[in-house]
């Protein structure tokens, strides 16, 4: 793990999978460049892994909430999907040693508590499917019968730029922003803009 300040006061940390205790030192809002293998998984893949077991070594693994577009073994588009759908499906992965969940929009309180002291949630910018694909090489697939969007794709990342959304201390940037926006709206309603 290497950390450096690339300006603007934001620390960029480079991480390589398999991950370890270094994720515990990340803070919500930090920038991360992640390299190494990640596994895509959406709703169906989570259900299948829960039932039949995880087809890869979960220790130190990173899970990417993504349904990519693959054509002739090439990744064309691989933006993040909404992580909240996996709120109640991620516990067994974290229990078995997964160290990072990657997606968009953040996760709920249950996931936040399950991440505590062991893993982080990394946010990737919604809609940035072409940027993601330009940092990826396809390495394999599990559960291909689930279809292109729901299969578990094994993808090697080369410095994918991410932001720590929820850290291992329970700081949740999405929750903080939501609470702030609620307060702003209450004030707006009582005082006008």
């Amino acid at each position, binding site marked *: 793990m290497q950390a450096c300040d690339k300006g603007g006061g934001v620390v960029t940390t480079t991480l390589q999978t398999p991950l370890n205790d270094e994720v515990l030192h990340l803070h919500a809002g930090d920038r991360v460049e992640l390299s190494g293998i990640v596994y895509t998984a959406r709703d169906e893949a989570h259900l299948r892994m829960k039932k039949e077991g995880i087809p890869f070594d979960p220790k130190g693994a990173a899970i990417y909430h993504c349904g990519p577009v693959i054509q002739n073994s090439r990744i064309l*588009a691989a933006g993040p999907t909404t992580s909240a759908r996996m709120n109640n499906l991620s516990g067994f992965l974290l229990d078995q040693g997964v160290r990072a969940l990657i997606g968009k929009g953040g996760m709920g309180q249950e996931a936040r508590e399950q991440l505590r002291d062991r893993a982080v949630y990394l946010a990737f910018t919604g809609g940035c499917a072409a940027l993601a694909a330009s940092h990826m090489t396809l390495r394999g697939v599990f559960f291909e019968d689930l279809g292109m969007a729901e299969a578990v794709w094994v993808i090697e990342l080369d410095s994918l730029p991410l*932001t720590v*959304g929820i850290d291992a201390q329970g700081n949740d*940037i999405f929750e903080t922003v939501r609470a702030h926006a609620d307060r702003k709206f209450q004030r707006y309603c009582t005082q006008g803009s």
Partner: protein
Amino acid sequence: MLRALEMATTDALREAVIRLPPDVKRVIERAASAETNPVAKGELANIARNIAAAEELGVPLCQDTGVPVVYLTLPPSIPLTENLYDAVAEGVRRATANIPLRPNVVDPLTRHNTNDNTGAGMPVIHVKPGDRFTVTVLPKGAGAENVSRIAMLLPSENDGIERFVVETVLCAGGKSCPPVVLGVGIGGTFDGAAALAKEALLQPIDHMDPLEQKLCDAVNCLGIGPMGMGGDTTALAVKVKTAACHTASLPVAVNVQCWACRRATREVVW
């Protein structure tokens, strides 16, 4: 002529899902340089790099290539016939196979996917008279469409318009992939206001009138920021369209559009 319409529809879709219009790129660049929140700056930098990567690789910006919303203008020499609708649908099928687009269109009840982005009433086609024969496409992704809202306000609630717009963005949070563009339809009828809101998204977004600017500033006070992670830029722009309405009505519709404000126009020539 029908073949030319089909080709123009495919071309416009290809352009729209790969390249953002110059006004949209300008507004995103402007927001990125004005943004003060470091996390938001990072998100906007990713968006800028994604726009460049899509153009360079010739692939769609986002894997949600949307549903096809199409606007035709017909000069007096082109009669409005069923064939025109079929040609546009064929252009959508071709675009789905060739670009490719993600097949998003399903039956609303059985959820059966047609796998070619067409179906009953899809593509959505709006026709207006014009000087030239043109096809404009607005591929609409679901994340932002799903948080769009309509209200039938009381005519005495004039302030309610701004409040409803701000509340819509608050409820959407990060789900709409902000920074968003808001199309706001004011007046008309219940259905008409929603159509106006979507049409408002066809206008260039690098200029706002005082009402649009006021709505945009009010939304940005929320601080939701890119992807709901905080920042100055929650809305890139607000565009308003109005229509006359009943003296007892005040319909307001907000059509939310993610930062990938995709649209493209092609003239149909043959």
